[in-house]
């Protein structure tokens, strides 16, 4: 069952990546899509300077609006994150992010010793919130030039997705851009190479420690409509789900944890089929009891709450 879930998920990830990067002519011509679809954001981290990109990166867009002289708050992006986050939480990371897919494929490459966790792993995961706050919000808002315009600091100095999806295909096919390559490109290439190497050793290192978009969706994981549930009547506490969780969380005691990317590996690993997922907004008390592990079964009086 686990392998079947994995195959379906990879197919969805690949299909979504192709669908949202379907401007294939761009890869040949070294140009990007310039249609009106670009005013719509895609849910995952997908550079809008990727030659195939049909939509906009929400993190790049947020920096563009906050860094513009005209706006100091983005209702469009704030609302977008609220809608997508409330509906899906980090399901986006597990299913709808092309850069997440790339990291997962890299992790499939055999390596002498895969690093499941290390000292400081959990603490380091807070780094993505700091990056969100500093590089995506504060610096674009306040580090502005004379015209009142800020830079997209995260995209410029950190994002390896932009280098991989936009930088490499555009620079390799556009001679004018090749003539402009300098220190920044080398810096970003360095970050990309480190990310690739780490992705072979560690499961989704960028998602765990760096991604500001994952940080935003993580805030919604506990309350999103798409959620995981654990049936404690079926659970035997064998901990197979925990051992199989690539994000190193316990699906039983930490159901819908901010780090859960809803990959479904815990569901596939559970011999009792005690873990399920789906959309539910009004199952209310019964499911909450299961999720929080307070009781094994909802009381009759709870059913009408």
């Amino acid at each position, binding site marked *: 069952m686990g392998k079947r879930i994995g195959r379906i998920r990879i197919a969805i990830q690949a299909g979504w990546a192709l669908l949202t990067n379907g401007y294939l002519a761009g890869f040949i011509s070294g140009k990007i899509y310039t249609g009106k679809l670009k005013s719509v954001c895609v849910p995952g981290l997908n550079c809008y300077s990727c030659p195939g990109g049909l939509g906009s990166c929400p993190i790049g867009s947020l920096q563009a609006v906050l860094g513009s002289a005209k706006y100091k708050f983005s209702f469009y992006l704030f609302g977008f994150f*609220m809608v997508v986050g409330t509906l899906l939480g980090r399901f986006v990371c597990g299913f709808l992010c092309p850069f997440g897919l790339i990291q997962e494929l890299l992790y499939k490459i055999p390596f002498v010793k895969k690093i499941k966790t290390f000292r400081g792993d959990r603490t380091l995961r807070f780094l993505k919130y700091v990056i969100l706050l500093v590089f995506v919000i504060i610096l674009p808002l306040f580090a502005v030039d004379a015209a009142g315009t800020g830079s997209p600091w995260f995209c410029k100095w950190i994002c390896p997705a*932009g280098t991989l999806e936009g930088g490499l295909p555009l620079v390799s096919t556009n001679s004018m851009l090749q003539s402009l390559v300098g220190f920044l490109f080398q810096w970003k290439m360095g970050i990309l190479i480190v990310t690739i190497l780490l992705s072979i050793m560690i499961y989704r290192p960028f998602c765990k420690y760096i991604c500001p978009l994952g940080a935003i969706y993580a805030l919604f994981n506990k309350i999103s409509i798409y959620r995981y549930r654990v049936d404690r009547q079926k659970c035997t506490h064998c901990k197979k789900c925990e051992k199989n969780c690539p994000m190193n969380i316990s699906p039983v005691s930490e159901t819908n944890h901010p780090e859960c990317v809803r990959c479904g590996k815990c569901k596939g690993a559970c011999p009792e089929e005690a873990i399920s997922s789906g959309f539910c907004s009004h199952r209310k008390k019964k499911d909450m009891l299961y999720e929080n592990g307070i009781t094994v079964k909802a009381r009759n009086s709870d059913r009408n709450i």
Partner: protein
Amino acid sequence: MQIGLLALGVLCVLFGIYREEVSTVLTKAIYICLECIGIG
């Protein structure tokens, strides 16, 4: 609560469209972002 958040989110998106934030997003997205690709 989820329905309330969804409704608030949709209202925010609509208000963002009304005050033309979308054109800022579009303008940024239809030109190659030199910072994003590492040119500067």
